[in-house]
């Protein structure tokens, strides 16, 4: 973590001031170590709290969507529900099936949680507010994320349960399939920003056209398409509805979590929410301008608040989608990835290349640029969608 901006106002510098106040007494080599520790602790604390709140908010929102109040008995508006859940999880018996592989059964949730925490390291939460400034931050993010698949497979296989095994197979196929579009949809952003470093990608989205249209990538045709692909892949990578196949409770009970209980189950739960948060954070970073304010006039609000706001908005959309959509089937899921998302991402790569090449076009050529850009984004979507949706559609019925 760097020293922090010096020209920004107090609120913006608050995290750094707090940190420096905590560590100013320490000698120099120790201070660096303490700063790192504080960064880790802050990330864990903030996202731990967010996880707790998110479970509550998810249940509340699901409840409201389903016209019921959701948890409201523990504390004021059910605010203590996560605490109650936590106590329940911790006091439950930890059951390991006799036929299970105890070592892997134990390692799976730990590894999953470890990898999902690792992904938080490179996300810029605010101006200069990033735990590790890596030159290849985006690559690091995907590398750490890809290792989570291994943990889910470990969980499914080590449980020695048929449901878990089927779930493990599904998890493998699903995560492999969606890793590719996830990566491919991030490539155009890297192309446009010319860097793999997450803070630099956010920096590159600063500024406004006509003073009110921010230069976020999502506001370009290719950016919107890439954001869509990234978002869908993120849904799938984080095992969220409608892609929650590994734990499809209607056929596989709880999938790879079938044989998990108590604290290990809680770890899995936590890791999944962490994964969701980090993917949303990356989506915000890549496409939604990271910590940049949407309007120049709103820049007095500290950058990390903007990041939090965008992150929460994306998380809410995740919950909203979960409340609405039924689940896909395994073959449809993989077909959707390989026949829709991957080609879309590839075409989009070309679209973003065109967008970079036509950077200098002006006047009427600018309109042409937009037209071609939109055509390159929407056209494949419509065409591929039509192919994908061939054979299904509304029907008319006759009466006897």
């Amino acid at each position, binding site marked *: 973590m760097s020293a922090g901006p010096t020209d920004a106002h107090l609120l913006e510098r608050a995290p750094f001031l707090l940190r420096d106040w905590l560590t100013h007494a320490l000698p120099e080599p120790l201070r660096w170590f303490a700063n790192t520790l504080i960064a880790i602790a802050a990330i864990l604390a903030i996202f731990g709290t967010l996880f707790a709140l998110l479970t509550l908010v998810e249940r509340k929102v699901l409840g409201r969507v389903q016209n019921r109040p959701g948890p409201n008995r523990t504390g004021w508006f059910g605010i203590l529900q996560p605490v109650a859940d936590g106590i329940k999880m911790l006091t439950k018996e930890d059951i390991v099936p006799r036929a299970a592989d105890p070592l*892997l059964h134990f390692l799976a949730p730990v590894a999953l949680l470890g990898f999902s925490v690792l992904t938080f390291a490179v996300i810029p939460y605010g101006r200069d507010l990033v735990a590790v400034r890596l030159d290849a931050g985006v690559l*690091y993010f995907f590398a750490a994320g*890809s*290792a989570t698949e*291994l943990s889910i497979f470990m969980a499914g296989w080590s449980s020695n349960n048929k449901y878990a095994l089927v779930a493990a197979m599904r998890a*493998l196929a699903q995560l492999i399939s969606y890793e590719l579009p996830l990566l491919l949809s991030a490539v155009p952003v890297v192309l446009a920003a010319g860097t793999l470093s997450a803070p630099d990608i956010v920096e590159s989205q600063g500024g406004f056209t006509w003073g009110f249209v921010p230069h976020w990538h999502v506001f370009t045709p290719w950016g919107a398409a890439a954001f869509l692909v990234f978002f869908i892949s993120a849904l799938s990578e984080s095992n969220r509805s409608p892609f929650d196949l590994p734990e499809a409770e209607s056929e596989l009970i709880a999938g790879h979590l079938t044989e998990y209980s108590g604290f290990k189950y809680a770890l899995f739960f936590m890791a999944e929410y962490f994964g969701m948060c980090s993917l949303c954070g990356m989506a915000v970073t890549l496409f939604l301008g990271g910590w940049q304010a949407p309007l120049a006039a709103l820049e007095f609000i500290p950058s990390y608040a903007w990041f939090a706001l965008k992150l929460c908005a994306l998380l809410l959309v995740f919950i909203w989608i979960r409340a609405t959509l039924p689940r896909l089937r395994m073959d449809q899921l*993989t077909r959707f990835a390989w026949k829709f998302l991957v080609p879309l991402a590839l075409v989009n790569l070309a679209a973003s290349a065109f967008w970079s090449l036509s950077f200098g076009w002006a006047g009427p050529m600018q309109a042409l640029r937009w037209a071609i850009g939109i055509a390159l984004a929407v056209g494949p979507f419509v065409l591929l969608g039509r192919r994908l949706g061939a054979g299904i559609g509304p029907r008319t019925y006759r009466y006897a």
Partner: protein
Amino acid sequence: MSAALAIVALATLGSAAAAMLGRSLLRSIFMLAVSWAGVAAFYMWAGAQFVAFAQVLIYLGAISMVALFAVLLTRQSRDEASPPPAALRRAILAVVAAAGVAAVLLWAVAHSPLAVSGSLAPATSVRQLGFDLMGRHAAALLVVGVLLTIALLGAVVLAADGAQERPGDEP
């Protein structure tokens, strides 16, 4: 500096050896994943960040997955229970051969006049790497791209072979 290298090397070698010795195929693959992660750690130690991330992404994220898939599709999660005498003889021969190779290599390493520069090579920035890949090594990059595409197609054709007679086997 060297201590970190020793730890990484020991972990990598240990897990690799465990993977090669293990009876359970899946455990072997998990051990190999650890070993590959160790190699990635070595790259980190050597200042090749980008390669380290690529190693994790490709080996942990893809190759181990493919291996797991192969294990599951061929239903071989438990390997042969007791090796037949022929296999045992072969194993002994293999270990002897490998030990021989290692001895020769180690001897060569120890006795070659390997010069070490005083200053380490500067850590390459991703930007520099990109320019290199697209500039000096563009042709090689193209070849690798073609190779990967052909390999992918070949793998699909090979794995999908006979899919008609056995529906549902193809993930």
